[in-house]
């Protein structure tokens, strides 16, 4: 009996813990420690387990996600051994970022569709529009806005299935980007 009770508590805890990973967002987020400010759309949800950046979605990470955050250029990028350097031009920085995307083993056939200068957080940065396939064959598209400031790269990254979903939230991404301010 005690065992069953313990199991029930464990399951309840597990469910609660699982639910607690997501919280509704909307409004202004002032990430003072990270040196930026951003406004998120209402009715999107943030994964609170991801601490090093804001990771939000409306319908689930497989359908659309927006990541906002910053990464120290002294830290390794997730997939490439290449390093960012604060003396890099936006074009050079975008090359390193795309090399990192291309080196990600969970996607295939990453291709740049457009690489253009962009205002990111009030500073001259870059916009990378790219496409790729998942290992399951699903075509996805992404937009990566980045800017090098001081010893960090500040970024906004949108990623969604190419069909239907990608277009659906491009405007949302643009609103988030317009609200994004780097304060360093």
């Amino acid at each position: 009996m005690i065992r069953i009770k313990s199991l029930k508590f464990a399951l309840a805890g597990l469910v609660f813990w699982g639910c607690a990973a997501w919280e509704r967002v909307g409004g202004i987020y002032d990430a003072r420690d990270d040196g930026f400010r951003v406004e998120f759309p209402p009715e999107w949800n943030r994964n609170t387990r991801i601490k090093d950046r804001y990771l939000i979605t409306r319908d689930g990470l497989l359908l659309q996600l927006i990541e906002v955050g910053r990464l120290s250029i002294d830290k390794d990028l997730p997939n490439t051994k290449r390093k960012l350097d604060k003396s890099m031009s936006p074009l050079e920085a975008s090359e390193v970022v795309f090399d990192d995307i291309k080196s990600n083993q969970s996607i295939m056939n990453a291709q740049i569709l457009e690489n253009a200068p962009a205002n990111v957080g009030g500073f001259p940065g870059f916009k990378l529009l790219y496409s790729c396939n998942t290992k399951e064959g699903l075509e996805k598209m992404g937009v990566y806005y980045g800017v090098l400031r001081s010893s960090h790269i500040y970024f906004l990254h949108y990623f969604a299935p190419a069909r239907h979903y990608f277009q659906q939230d491009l405007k949302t991404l643009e609103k988030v980007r317009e609200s994004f301010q780097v304060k360093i």
Partner: protein
Amino acid sequence: MFSIHRAIGTWTTSWLAVLVLGAAACRSAAPMTPDVLPTMAEVEKRLWSESRDRTRRLDQSGVLHESKELQAYVNTVAQRLLPASLRIQDAPINVKVIKNPYFNAFTFPHGAIYIHSGLLAAMENEAQLAALLGHEIAHFNHRHAYVHLSNRENVSVSFQVLAMGAGGAGLFSPLVSLFGLFTMNAAVSGYSQSLEWEADDTGLDLAMKAGYDPREAVKLFEILEREVKDRDKDQPFFFGSHPRLTERRDHYRQLVESHHAGRTGEIGADKFNDETAVIKLENVEINIAQGRWDWAESALVRFLSRYGHDPRGHYLLGELFRRRNKTEDRERAERAYKDALALDDRFALAHRGLGLLHERTGDAEKAHMSFRRYLELAPGANDRAHIESQLANQQIGRMP
């Protein structure tokens, strides 16, 4: 009331019953021949059916290399290795190349063989490819997937994995994990040592009978060993998880020195290098993106020693040096870009590389000329806006 959960549960249970009964019934298998097909046990038929589904999805996922010539070439080599008993109309051996820089090759139970382009790029000649394909064909010949499945221990592990899958991934996890158990675990990650060694033995025999030099099999493993030492330990590496790589090399060496002592044969370096040149450069590009400079550089030096007239090889050497950006790299990058342009002045990306290089070294005049030439040659470049912006900034910089 119809319940999809129950339906799937029932389906899975019956599948597993078949699996266990099949496993209990058969622990070894006669080599594959056309006569074996109609007599295959239900469990093996299901295994084939699932592996056909999986390969169909894999083929449609965009991971395959797009070069039809390359796909045709590896199949030509495979066909040359096939004995008459394995020329089965309903189960044709089919080799496909997957675009992936890591070393891997695997065979699905119904005879579909996949090779990663990274593994092909590391090879030196056709005899080495033949040794590898012979090994993979031998897995099919000896029905290793089925033999593996027939092992009671594997079935027990399968149950555990199924249970975990069912608990962790929801409704469809039992369906998804079934294939993963039998094919991904074994065919992709490697069979037991005895099965792998049996495949080495038969595979080398097939390569030798087809006229290839068996000694190249040992050399292939020496190359792989050398290259693996340069790689990170955490990289996925198929042959390392088989009986260890050195053990495999030693096993091949033993086979060559005992069963095939004194035998030589065709090496086929020229044809192999011509047919695989495209993937050697693609692999270099991937290694540059990953920042694996030494790998990329040694591959490029090897490539250029053979194809010094190829502007793309020189351009990639320029990219490698520019992106690595050590002090001595700038001059080397400039030289490499200029070598590419000496071979083909209309190679747009080499002009781009020179422009970025000159911009970094503060030579605005030269950067301006190179960028302008780049845009003339590649008006639809995906980074046109960046380059135009840099040109505009240089223009402002030059204003009095």
